[in-house]
């Protein structure tokens, strides 16, 4: 198994470890740590001095602000640098500023705990870590390397024999593999420390997760808006033309004698137009139920119950109209559940129950059928679960073999 981290690499077989890129990566990590430390120290000392000197002119405050925010830059570079010894990327804990512009950026950053953790890391890094980096490189690598190069400086000195000189070099080379261990272990420890401090906290990840589910809800909303637009278009366009066509045929029918061939054709045309109209009506109802928009959930559920071939008792009492996306989701939950009851359950009756509990709509569709409904098996129920989840709610199902079946949807109504 290829090691995924420096720690894992160290515990591999010595030959495998020494032949791998881990020691080199660790050295690179520590060297970049020293460089970053020196650079940060220089910049921060400069900024602090400038801030202290210019504080009277208030301009200095900008320098202090830059010091406070320096951790953001250091943190970003550290997260990027960490990939040398830890290939698992570290997500950025920062949120995107709500508005564009520097002021909004600074304001957002100053409010984030991540910014202050990064500043803390920078201070610790400057106070201790990069010295240890330098010490590690200097002692652990410095000793063997200086042993190796000693003969080069002593070439002019003819007093010693050739043998001892080459011994220095051999000793240096022999020490190098041993140096690889402490270097890699320190690099790994420093990496773990960086990860612990610079990784996003759950709450910070949580903010991003909420953002994702919100965008899913937006997508569902966009679909609903689109469905309503289609419904409007069909209503204002195709449906009205069909009615106008029907009227024209009706008027023409008045002009021809009963029993004539023309009358027969016109009657057939009239029948056809009515069938088209009926189909269009069904289609429109499936796309978007008009009664839901007009009268809200209790009326639309009653309507669904009326259409169900299985007798349905409706017990829906809500204190107010709910947000449109909730109403639409709830309507389709009832619609799909009642369709399932009629198709699969063999039930002789069903109940739709809905109440608003504080800010959550709790909707239950219960039947006395054979049970055995399965979220994984039925595509309809799985689709509903997705839809409910996108609205921030959850769908629960109880359907033991032999029944009864209960579908319960909980939909948050706040915001």
């Amino acid at each position: 198994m290829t090691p995924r981290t420096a720690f894992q690499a160290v515990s591999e077989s010595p030959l495998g470890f020494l032949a791998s890129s881990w020691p080199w990566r660790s050295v690179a990590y520590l060297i970049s740590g020293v460089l970053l430390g020196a650079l940060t120290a220089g910049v921060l000392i400069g900024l602090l001095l400038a801030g202290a000197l210019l504080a009277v002119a208030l301009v200095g405050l900008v320098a202090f602000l830059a010091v406070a925010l320096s951790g953001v830059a250091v943190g970003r570079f550290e997260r990027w640098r960490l990939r040398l010894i830890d290939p698992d990327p570290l997500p950025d804990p920062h949120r995107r500023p709500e508005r564009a512009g520097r002021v909004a950026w600074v304001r957002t950053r100053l409010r984030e705990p991540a910014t202050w953790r990064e500043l803390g890391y920078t201070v610790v890094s400057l106070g201790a870590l990069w010295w240890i980096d330098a010490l590690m490189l200097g002692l652990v690598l410095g000793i063997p390397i200086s042993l190796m190069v000693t003969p080069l400086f002593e070439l002019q000195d003819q007093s010693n024999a050739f043998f001892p000189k080459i011994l220095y070099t051999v000793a240096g080379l022999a020490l190098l593999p041993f140096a690889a261990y402490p270097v890699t272990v320190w690099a790994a420890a420093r990496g773990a420390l960086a990860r612990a401090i610079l990784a996003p906290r759950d709450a910070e990840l949580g903010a991003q997760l909420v953002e994702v589910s919100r965008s899913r809800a937006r997508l569902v909303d966009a679909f609903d808006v689109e469905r309503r637009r289609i419904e409007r278009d069909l209503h204002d366009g195709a449906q009205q033309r069909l009615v106008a066509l029907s009227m024209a045929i009706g008027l023409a029918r008045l002009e021809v004698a009963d029993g004539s061939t023309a009358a027969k054709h016109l009657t057939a045309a009239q029948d056809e137009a009515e069938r088209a109209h009926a189909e269009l009506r069904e289609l429109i109802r499936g796309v978007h139920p008009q009664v839901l928009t007009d009268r809200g959930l209790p009326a639309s559920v009653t309507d669904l119950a009326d259409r169900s071939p299985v007798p349905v008792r409706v017990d829906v009492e809500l204190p107010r109209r709910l947000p449109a996306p909730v109403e639409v989701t709830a309507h389709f939950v009832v619609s799909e559940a009642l369709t399932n009851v009629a198709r699969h359950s063999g039930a002789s009756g069903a109940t739709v129950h809905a109440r608003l509990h504080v800010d959550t709509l709790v909707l239950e569709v219960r039947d006395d059928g054979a049970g055995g409904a399965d979220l994984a098996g039925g595509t309809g129920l799985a689709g509903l679960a997705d839809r409910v989840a996108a609205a921030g709610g959850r769908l629960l199902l109880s359907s033991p073999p032999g029944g009864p079946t209960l579908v319960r949807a909980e939909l948050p109504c706040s915001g």
Partner: protein
Amino acid sequence: MLRIVVAEDAVLLREGLVGIVERFGHQVVAAVGDAAALTTAVAHERPDVVLTDVRMPPAFTDEGLRAAVALRAAYPGMPVLVLSQYVQPTYAAELLDSGGGRGVGYLLKHRVGRVEEFMDALVRVANGGAAVDPEVVAQLLGRRRDPLTRLTPREREVLGLIAEGRSNAAIARALVVSEAAVAKHIASILLKLDLPPAADDHRRVLAVLAYLRG
């Protein structure tokens, strides 16, 4: 000749409706495109009957229906025939509840194509009768299953036709049976539904509808 106010926002259909009623010798005293104009026109013209769409500007929900119910409250006995694109028992029940169910109708729009039947319904409503779309009746029947299971399929059929506002003679023609047979069915229906038989056809319709709405 009836004096009629027509309210329909789609010009194509409005012109069509005006054409049809005028073809039958009635007079359209106002043809308007929204609920506010409808209310004004009725106040001005005091027509014999109002013919209105459900969905109209500005919100395109149920302005027409609400205007109709309001008009029937403001002018008791004002006959109103509502045309809808949808089978919507909730709307129908609300309308039928107004004004004690006299001179009221609820038809699906495409019935207008059956020009003679449509005009029959309009005249019936203008004369204080009722006209309910068969599809709406079917749904209203579906709503109250339990007591209706006692009816035979033929009796359900007859009840549907009664609810539409047909006379015994019309029902007999529609079902190709004698009027006596229809009368027998009706007596049986009213008995099974615990409704005392009444002499007046019109009151019988209301009784049935009231029961169905209940």
